[in-house]
């Protein structure tokens, strides 16, 4: 019986690692620039080899991916990137002088390493915000924000980071991550996100504890 369970566990572990393997194979094919039987086979072989030799702590994927929110995230990201790039380019040449900045402690909802990393990457790629320090234990990002003349601008930066986190959680967050966001949204009197029947059961179970 227990052998069967570890077998299932191993199979699920493999399925959860599959996106990483697929990405490595795709990368290999992109580097070669053509798709042949040999390049695909060597790609699979190398992907398996690389994940065995350069062993990293397994990434906790939730096993869920929303294509709609993934596209929404990509679209908002592209818009932010263009707008902020132009803004920083202007701040660089603004004749009125250099901007006033802030270092902000931003409390994320998630406890997941993956979502925290993706959020940090996304806000670092958008000009005007730079992650200076990360507190993994407390899920805190210390963000250096360019151009925060007043408190209202500071709160805008804080809000924009949390919105990015929310979009990433909607795309691939676990039920627990969605629950953490929903708990705060309910407390603030805002409607919860992504309430599938399964999510509702999960949240009722957690609220009941």
């Amino acid at each position, binding site marked *: 019986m227990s052998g069967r369970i570890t077998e299932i566990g191993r199979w699920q572990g493999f399925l959860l690692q599959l996106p990483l393997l697929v990405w490595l194979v795709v990368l290999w094919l992109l580097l070669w620039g053509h798709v042949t039987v040999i390049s695909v086979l060597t790609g699979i072989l190398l992907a398996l080899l690389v994940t065995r030799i350069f062993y990293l702590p397994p990434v906790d994927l939730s096993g869920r991916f929303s294509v709609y929110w993934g596209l929404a995230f990509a679209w908002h990201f592209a818009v932010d990137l263009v707008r902020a*790039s132009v803004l920083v380019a202007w701040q660089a040449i603004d004749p009125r002088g250099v901007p006033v900045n802030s270092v902000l402690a931003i409390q994320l909802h998630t406890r997941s390493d993956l979502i925290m990393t993706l959020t940090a990457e996304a806000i670092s790629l958008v000009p005007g915000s730079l992650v200076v320090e990360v507190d993994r234990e407390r899920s805190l990002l*210390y963000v250096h924000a360019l151009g925060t003349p007043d408190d209202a601008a500071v709160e805008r930066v804080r809000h924009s980071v949390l919105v990015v986190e929310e979009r990433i959680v909607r795309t691939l967050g676990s039920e627990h991550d969605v629950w953490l966001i929903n708990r705060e949204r309910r407390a603030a009197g805002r409607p919860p996100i992504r309430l599938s029947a399964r999510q509702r059961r999960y949240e009722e179970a957690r609220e009941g504890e």
Partner: protein
Amino acid sequence: MSAAELLDAGSVLFLFAAALLSLAAGIGIVRFPDPLSRMHAATKPQILGLVCALVALGLQAENGATVAALVPILAFQMLTAPVSAHMVGRAGYRTRHLRRDLLLRDELADAIDKAHADAAHHDVEPDLPGLVTDEDTSTPRP
């Protein structure tokens, strides 16, 4: 105007935008007063500038393989630029290479002060938030 001429015009526009963004980044590096601000100018408009340059190249590409080679360039740039910016910014902050008079708020300094105050109160080592990332990341969270 033929299709080839339209593509050429598009490439010119995108290359021009890329050049402008690089110019702004260069001016920003000279004008911004501390490493943290300079990292914004040095690394960030480059991403959009790179996208523009790659689109210009893609418009001129004659086969799919060239376009496929452009994708990993952008992917790796997007993965590595934030990491290098973070490392330089982090080192800059820790070695105090920043102009505090230009900061409206510094909540990291507040957190460090609080950690030191708590540690002095309980007579223990300060629980500094920044030092957490130096630990072995393979250990699970508590």
